[in-house]
C-alpha cells in the first residue's frame, strides 16, 4: 500500500502535505484501505475555482491514525459505492452540494433537498434557480400482486423530528424501507465557512442538540489543533465527565423509549424521568441541562467545585441504581424479550460493509469505539471498557446501552476522584493558515468526525461535520428488511438516529 500522510486524533497538518492523487489512484487508495479494514470517516468536497476537490479521511482503528488524501475534478467522478457501500451517502452529499455526478452510483438521490452550491445545474440536471421540493425524488418500487407501499412523515405522531419513510411491503412483511431526510436542513455547514465567529460554538452545540457536548468537544479538538493549544488535564477531565453524562442521559432515555414501543410502561415511565435526572446532573456542571456553553476551544467555561463534584457523584450513583432497577424489569419480562430478541438484526458483515459506528456497530459484534481506538484528552490516561455484543438485534442494541451506562458511571466516579487541580481554560492563538485539522469523538450515538480546512487568513475555508447518524441511517433500512411494518418504531428507537445531525 502506498503511504499516505496521517495525523493522530486532534492534529493538524499543512494542507499542501495532503497528496493530490489522480482519480484512479484516489479510488485505489480508498478501496485498498477499506479492504484492509480501514473506514471512511469523512469524504467531502471543497469548491476550488472551477473545480471541486474531494478529501478523504480514512480511519485506521488498529493504529489510531487518520490517513488523508485528495483528488480534484470538474464535473464528475467515478463512484465507489458499488464496491464500498459505506461511501454511498457521502457521494450523494457531494453530488447534491457541488453539482458533480458520481458516475455509476447505484441510487443517486438528493439527501437534503437544497440547490447546488456551485454551477448552473445540479447533479440531476435541474436549473440551480429552480425551487427544490423536499422529499420529491425517485423511490424504489416493488411490483407484484399484493405488494403495497406505506408512506409516513414528514410529520410523525410523537414529539420527534421530521423525516419521510416509505415501506415496500407484502402484507406485514417489509421488503425494503426507504428513508428520506432533509426536512431539518438549516444550512449549518455552509454558514460555518468564513468562521470562527461568535456563532460558531453555538452552531456546534445545536448540530444535534442531544449531542451538544460531543460536537462541542470535536470542535474544540479541531480548534486546539489549529491554534496549537493544549487544554489543562483538569479541563480535559471535566469535558470527559460531561460527555459521559450525555451518554448516560441518552442511553437511559433510549431504554425507556424501547420499553414504550413494546408497551411496557413501567420502564418507559421510570427511564423518562431518569433521563431528566442525568440532564439535571449535567446542569450541575454548567447550569444547562444539555451542557450548552460548557466546552470551548482551550478548555471549559466552568470549573468544578468540590461540592458540585460530590453532588454529581451522589446523583450519578443514585440515578444509575434506578436505571438498573428499571432496566432489570426489561431483561426479566418474557413479553419484552420476545419482542426484542431477533428483531431488526444487522449482521456483523453488513455492519462492517455499511461502516456503522457506535452502539449500533458494537451490538453487531464490531469492536469500534473512538474512546479506545483514538483516545483523546482524559481517555488517554483513563480508558473506558468498550462493550460488544453479537446478535445485532434490538435486544443487543438495548443491552449495549445498559452495559455502557454502567461503564460511564464508573468512569465519572473515578475521573472525579482523580481530577487534577489547575486552571480550566487556556487562551487560544489565531488558527494556522492553510491547515487541515481532523478530530474524532465518541458521542453517545457513535463516531463524530469534524474536519476543518483554513484559508490563507486562518478562516474556515471548509468545515465538515459527520455525525454518527450519517453512517447509521442506512443501517436502520437494512435492519428492517424482512421484518414486520409494526417493528419499525422499535427498530427506529433501537438506533435512535439524529435527523438534524444528519440534515445540518
Amino acid at each position: 500500500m502506498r503511504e499516505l500522510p496521517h495525523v493522530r486524533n486532534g492534529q493538524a497538518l499543512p494542507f499542501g502535505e495532503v497528496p493530490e492523487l489522480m482519480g484512479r489512484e484516489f479510488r485505489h487508495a480508498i478501496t485498498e484501505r477499506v479492504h484492509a479494514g480501514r473506514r471512511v470517516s469523512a469524504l467531502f468536497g471543497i469548491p476550488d475555482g472551477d473545480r471541486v476537490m474531494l478529501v478523504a479521511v480514512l480511519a485506521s482503528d488498529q493504529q489510531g491514525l487518520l490517513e488523508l488524501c485528495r483528488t480534484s475534478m470538474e464535473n464528475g467522478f467515478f463512484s465507489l459505492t458499488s464496491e464500498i457501500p459505506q461511501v454511498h451517502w457521502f457521494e450523494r452529499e457531494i453530488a447534491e452540494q457541488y453539482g458533480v455526478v458520481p458516475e455509476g452510483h447505484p441510487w443517486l438521490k438528493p439527501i437534503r433537498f437544497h440547490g447546488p452550491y456551485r454551477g448552473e445545474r445540479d447533479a440531476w440536471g435541474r436549473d440551480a434557480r429552480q425551487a427544490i421540493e423536499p422529499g420529491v425524488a425517485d423511490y424504489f418500487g416493488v411490483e407484484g400482486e399484493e405488494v403495497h407501499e406505506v408512506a409516513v412523515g414528514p410529520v410523525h405522531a410523537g414529539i420527534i423530528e421530521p423525516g419521510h419513510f416509505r415501506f415496500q411491503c407484502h402484507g406485514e412483511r417489509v421488503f425494503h424501507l426507504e428513508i428520506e431526510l432533509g426536512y431539518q436542513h438549516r444550512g449549518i455547514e455552509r454558514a460555518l465557512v468564513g468562521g470562527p465567529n461568535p456563532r460558531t460554538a453555538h452552531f456546534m452545540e445545536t448540530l444535534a442538540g442531544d449531542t451538544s457536548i460531543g460536537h462541542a468537544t470535536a470542535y474544540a479538538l479541531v480548534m486546539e489543533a489549529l491554534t496549537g493549544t493544549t487544554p489543562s488535564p483538569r479541563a480535559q477531565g471535566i469535558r470527559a465527565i460531561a460527555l459521559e453524562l450525555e451518554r448516560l442521559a441518552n442511553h437511559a432515555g433510549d431504554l425507556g423509549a424501547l420499553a414504550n414501543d413494546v408497551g411496557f410502561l413501567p420502564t418507559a415511565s421510570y427511564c423518562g424521568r431518569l433521563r431528566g435526572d442525568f440532564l439535571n446532573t449535567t446542569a450541575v456542571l454548567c447550569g444547562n441541562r444539555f451542557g450548552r456553553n460548557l466546552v470551548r476551544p482551550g478548555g471549559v467555561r466552568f470549573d468544578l467545585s468540590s461540592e458540585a463534584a460530590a453532588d454529581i457523584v451522589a446523583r450519578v450513583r443514585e440515578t444509575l441504581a434506578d436505571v438498573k432497577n428499571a432496566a432489570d424489569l426489561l431483561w426479566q419480562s418474557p413479553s419484552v424479550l420476545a419482542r426484542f430478541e431477533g428483531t431488526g438484526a444487522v449482521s456483523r458483515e453488513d455492519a462492517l460493509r455499511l461502516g456503522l459506528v457506535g452502539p449500533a456497530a458494537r451490538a453487531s459484534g464490531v469492536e469500534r469505539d473512538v474512546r479506545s481506538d483514538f483516545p483523546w484528552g482524559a481517555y488517554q490516561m483513563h480508558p473506558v471498557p468498550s462493550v460488544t455484543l453479537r446478535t445485532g438485534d434490538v435486544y443487543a442494541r438495548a443491552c449495549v446501552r445498559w452495559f455502557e451506562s454502567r461503564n460511564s458511571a464508573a468512569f465519572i466516579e473515578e475521573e472525579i476522584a482523580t481530577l487534577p487541580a489547575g486552571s480550566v481554560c487556556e487562551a487560544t492563538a489565531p488558527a494556522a493558515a492553510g491547515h487541515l485539522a481532523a478530530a474524532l469523538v465518541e458521542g453517545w450515538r457513535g463516531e463524530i468526525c469534524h474536519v476543518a480546512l483554513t484559508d490563507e487568513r486562518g478562516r474556515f475555508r471548509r468545515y465538515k461535520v459527520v455525525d454518527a447518524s450519517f453512517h447509521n441511517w442506512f443501517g436502520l433500512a437494512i435492519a428492517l428488511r424482512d421484518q414486520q411494518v409494526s417493528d419499525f418504531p422499535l427498530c427506529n428507537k433501537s438506533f435512535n438516529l439524529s435527523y438534524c445531525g444528519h440534515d445540518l
Partner: protein
Amino acid sequence: MLRILQARLKQGYRTIRYPCESPTLPTLYCGKPEWEAAKCTEGCRACIDSCPTGALSKASGALTIDMGRCLFCTGCMDNCPAGAISFSREHRLAARTREGLVLDGRAFQLAGALDEQMRRLFGRSLKLRQVSAGGCNACEADINVLNTLAFDLGRFGIQFVASPRHADGLLVTGPVTKNMELALRKTYEATPAPKLVIAVGACAISGGVFAGHDEVLDGVPTGIPVDLFVPGCPPHPLTILDGLLRLLGRA
C-alpha cells in the same frame, strides 16, 4: 408482576409540586437577563459585538435585550467590561406578544391568560400537536420531559396528540426550515379552529442561532399567528410549563 410492584416501590413518587411549590433550579442556572444601565459606559458596544444572535441593541443610548433571540449563553455578561449585565434565577419568561420579550429596563410583563371564552374552551383540556421544524432536538426533548413522571403534564389537562385533527393547537419548535414550511402550514390548516399556536425556543421565535440563513424562515412564519412565546435555547421545562399554565390562567 411482583417485581414490577417492587420496582414501583423503589422508584417512589417523583412528581414535582409545581406550581404550588417553587422549583429547585441548578446553582448555575441563568434566567431572565438584568442589567444596571448606570454602569454602561457611553459608546461601549462590547456586549452587542459579542452576541451571536444580535439580541442586544442600544436604542437611543439605552440597552435592550430581546429574549426572543437570546440563547442565554451569558457571552454578553462575560464580555461586559463594567460588569453591568447579569442573569437572574427567574425562570418565568413566556410572553403573549413578540414585543413582550424585548426587555428595555421596564418591568417585564408575564404572559397573561387567554380571554374568558377561550379559557372556557381550553382551560381544563388542551390537546396540542407538536411540530418540529428544524429544531435541534433539545427543545423537543424538554417538551417531552413534561410528559414524564417528574412534571406529569397530564394532571393539568394538557396532552400531546398524534393528529392535528384531534388538536386544539400547535406547539412549534425550530427555525422553520424551508423544507418544513409546507408541512407546517398543512398541519396548521388541518387543526380545527379556534386554535392556539405556541412557539417554543429562540429558533421558533426568531430563527435563533440560524436566523438569516437562506434555508430557514426565521421562526413561525406569517399566516400562523402565535399566542404564546417561550424564550430560551432550549427553555427550561419549567419555563415551558409556566408559560402553558399562564396561558390557561392556571398559574
